[in-house]
């Protein structure tokens, strides 16, 4: 679908000045300003984009965050090392387990007790992380079509995600905030029959994967909306610090699971999918492939993991755990990209500083603001979702 006829000459559009202000005189009445969010069904989470419009197109966008700010980093500074993990999991609700892993791993590393984490716990952590990725993708892949109002896929996806949440519930005792990965290990073995039920669900998901491919990727209207929309050029990757699927869709293969293997990923057989175009379609396509891969990974994990084992190593008493002064940066690959935590201890029983580095920090502010310029407002939501913005990890 070429719309060349409708592509105006944008050279006279205002651009952003170096200091971030816009070369736009709002009082000239040439531009309108509208807000997308925070009360808006199209916004991922609770954030706002302040858009200055010239007609139907955006001349300037500003991301406003902080609606979900709870001051986690401050709160964790007030909590014991063990108490930190229930708090941390709420940092990002989309893939909560990643936060837990980061805080657990940072704590273990700085206290020098990494070796005490049992093998079984490592496998279970890997499983939990992959399940978290799976449930995120089950929402995310059809969700991209959902932004163009193709709601059916979302409905299927959320249903299947719910099945995975059921498995989570069985394994961890909770649906969304699992609080499963605790410093030192995990909080439960696989219940009996778990693998069989999981396999049932994976079979359903296999069916879903085929259906969703037919529904989305062979859909002329979806293609006409997504192809060529919101392109991330390859040279932006380093310039903006773009990671994860967003980078891989532009042809830069970066995946922490491969680059700096953690947990059991070095024992698993997978290859991160990539694409070249860097547009919405490519990002969705990469995510779809990742969905396929995650299902495969979960099968691999369940086949390779031991049947029995300890779930938690001997750790210091939860009430008096103290960690000597030190700092570290631990990262993992979440569904949105490199997800890291800068963790500083000072010898007391509470962390000195915890700083979460979510990929959305870059994607939803610097990249989004840049990318939205000259887009139609109809595409804002799709762009946002295709970058997988998750506001809580920006403001924490």
């Amino acid at each position, binding site marked *: *679908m070429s719309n060349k006829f409708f592509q105006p000459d944008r050279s006279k559009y205002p651009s952003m000045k170096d200091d971030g202000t816009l070369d736009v005189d709002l009082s000239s009445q040439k531009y309108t300003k509208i807000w997308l969010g925070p009360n808006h069904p199209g916004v991922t989470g609770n954030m706002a984009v302040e858009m200055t419009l010239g007609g139907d197109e955006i001349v300037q966008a500003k991301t406003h965050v902080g609606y979900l700010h709870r001051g986690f980093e401050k709160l964790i500074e007030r*909590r*014991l090392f*063990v*108490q*930190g*993990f*229930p*708090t941390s999991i*709420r940092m990002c609700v989309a893939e909560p387990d990643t936060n837990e892993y980061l805080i657990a791993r940072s704590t273990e590393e700085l206290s020098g007790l990494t070796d005490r984490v049992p093998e079984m716990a490592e496998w279970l952590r890997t499983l939990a992380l992959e399940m978290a990725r799976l449930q995120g993708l089950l929402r995310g892949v059809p969700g991209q079509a959902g932004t163009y109002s193709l709601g*059916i896929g979302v409905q*299927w996806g959320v*249903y299947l995600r719910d099945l995975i949440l*059921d498995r989570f*519930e*069985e*394994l*961890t*005792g*909770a649906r969304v*905030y699992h*609080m499963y990965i605790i410093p030192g*290990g995990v*909080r*439960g*073995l696989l*219940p009996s029959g778990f693998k069989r039920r999981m396999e049932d669900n994976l079979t359903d998901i*296999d069916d879903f*994967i085929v*259906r969703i491919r*037919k*529904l989305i*990727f*062979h*859909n*002329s209207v979806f*293609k*006409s909306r997504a*192809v060529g929309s919101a392109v991330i050029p390859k040279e932006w990757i380093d310039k903006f610090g773009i990671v994860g699927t967003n980078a891989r869709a532009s042809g830069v293969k970066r995946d922490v699971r491969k680059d700096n293997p953690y947990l059991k990923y070095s024992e698993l057989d997978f*290859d991160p*999918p*990539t*694409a*070249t175009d860097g547009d919405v*379609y490519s990002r969705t*396509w990469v995510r779809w*492939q990742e969905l*396929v*891969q995650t*299902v*495969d990974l979960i099968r691999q994990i369940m086949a390779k993991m031991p049947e029995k084992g*300890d*779930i*938690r190593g*001997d750790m*210091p*008493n*939860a*009430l*008096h755990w103290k960690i000597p002064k030190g700092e570290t940066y631990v990262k993992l690959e979440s569904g949105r990209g490199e997800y890291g935590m800068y963790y500083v201890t000072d010898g007391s029983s509470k962390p000195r500083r915890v700083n979460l580095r979510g990929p959305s920090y870059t994607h939803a502010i610097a990249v989004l603001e840049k990318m939205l310029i000259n887009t139609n407002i109809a595409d804002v939501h799709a762009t946002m979702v295709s970058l997988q913005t998750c506001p809580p990890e920006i403001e924490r």
Partner: protein
Amino acid sequence: MKQQTRNNKRINIITMNIKDILTPFTAWSKVVQDPVTIKDPLTREAAPRYRGFHKNDIDMCIGCGTCEDICENQAIDMVPVEGVETKSGDSGLRPRIDYGRCCWCALCVDICTTNSLNLTNEYTWVDADPEVFIYTPGVDKKSWDDKEDGWQKPVPNYHFYGQKRVHMGELHADERKDSFIEFVKGYSKEQAEMEADRCVSCGICTATCPAHMGIPEYIAAVRNDDMEEGMRILYETNPLPEICGRICTHKCEDVCSVGVNGDALSIRWLKRYIADQIPADVEKYNEILYTKDIKKNDKKIAVIGSGPAGLSAAYYLGLLGYSVTIFEKLPEAGGMMRYGIPSYRLPYDQIDKDVDYILSIGVDIKYNVNIGTDITLQQLNDDYDAVYAGTGLHLGRSTRIPGSDHKNVYQSVDLLRDIVTGAPVPVEKKIVVIGGGNVAMDITRSMARLQMEKYGEVNVIATALEDEEHMPADREEIVEAREEGCDVIPAYGPQEVIIKDDKVIGLKVWKCLSIFDETGFNPKFDESDERIFEGDMVIESIGQGMDLSYLSEDIKAKMEFGPRGRILVNEDWQAKGLPWLFIGGDIIEGPDVIHGIANGHRGAMSIDEFLNQGR
């Protein structure tokens, strides 16, 4: 599926073809499938492990408050509830949970020392009134109280604090049974810190400890490696840490909340660890404990007996500035601690370490003074403002069975004292000990050592009325005695010392079925199960009596006595009838060092109050 991922084949998307228009319609095939909706979501059961609402078995719960400590949201309050009494080992408090705070992390369940607090998998609680969401599980009845499923403490090997006690190094039985060298090695720094780390700082033990020592606080000092602070905490309530650290009956460990589902904390060994870290240097002690210059007042106190009660009273009186003089009958201080406890358990230099410090704060001691003969009690009353008597139980009690008056039937207290003073101790080849208490074990093991020295082998039988579980001796004492080759045979009652040719040849015993009935002490025996324990000498160790010979008749006349000759004291430890005489220690509480120390402390306070009444 897999193949597609691997090949990463990009489908051709640019050309718009008819396929791209038709394939999406495949989605309509779903219309003939049944909906996947849950029919009745309102009654849906959550997973068996689901973390729903709390329930608490209030009979099992001991109100240790660990759940409150671990809760990062301050959602838990410990509150008194009706029907639960505050008693030793149970604070009488129960957790009340604020569901306006809870985040259902279940850390409270994971750390619960008694496993009484659990989560059910019930999850629906809707109300228009926000005030109802504070409740005490187990007390406020809820519909989910009887639910079985829900979050329980994960298994296996999932603990928030160490379940296993750090092993205390000991000399092996073969090494120790021929000498009186102290066989418990004491903790190293790592061990002590590891053991201290297991403490959950609940403080339940403090109430049970007769001296109400600040146990969690000094354990915290061990954790923080701050021995001086630890020492200060110890001396707040206990001036004999070295001694207590070795031979305390550690009632605290019985109620330790960590011990409910694991090994109780070795509170005693940790106390010993703290005391051991400070060198035996009174200067240093004075510095740490801020007792270098104590303001003296003009009051004088006499203390009779330098046992735990006497020393404790003297120390605390000394701290308050009184001039204290201790009168000791024996040549060295320590009382029963020195003369009743064998040195493999409590070496003399450790007694000296504690005693020296007490003396260093200005307490005077007079040895070999026998009240009643050398100086009368009345004289003390005249010379001093108050008198504290902690005279202890130094007389052995006899079983009064036939043959017990034979010369080869001994009292354990006498033998133990003789071992210390160096008096000759008769050691026969085969020895039978009657009694199952700690003193019985002491004499058993001491005799075993002497036998080892003399004959190169151990042949001691210790027998007790009580069965294995109910023997009053500490468990480890019995175990160690057995390790050392002694034969501990519980649940037999002595009936007769068999004497042949004026020589003791054994002890006849019957199987004991029960000890107490409704009338009190009234043992029942199975006469058919009769055994004879062979022995050349018999040692009776069934309890001690007090020696009240220092009380003159006129003083006795003023005092009040209870059943079985017990001295009656009021709650301030004043002897009833004699306001200037304060009595404490074993004669009041029975044989126990920590009770003695507590008595001494409280006696000292009472004396202080008594003397300052006029002010």
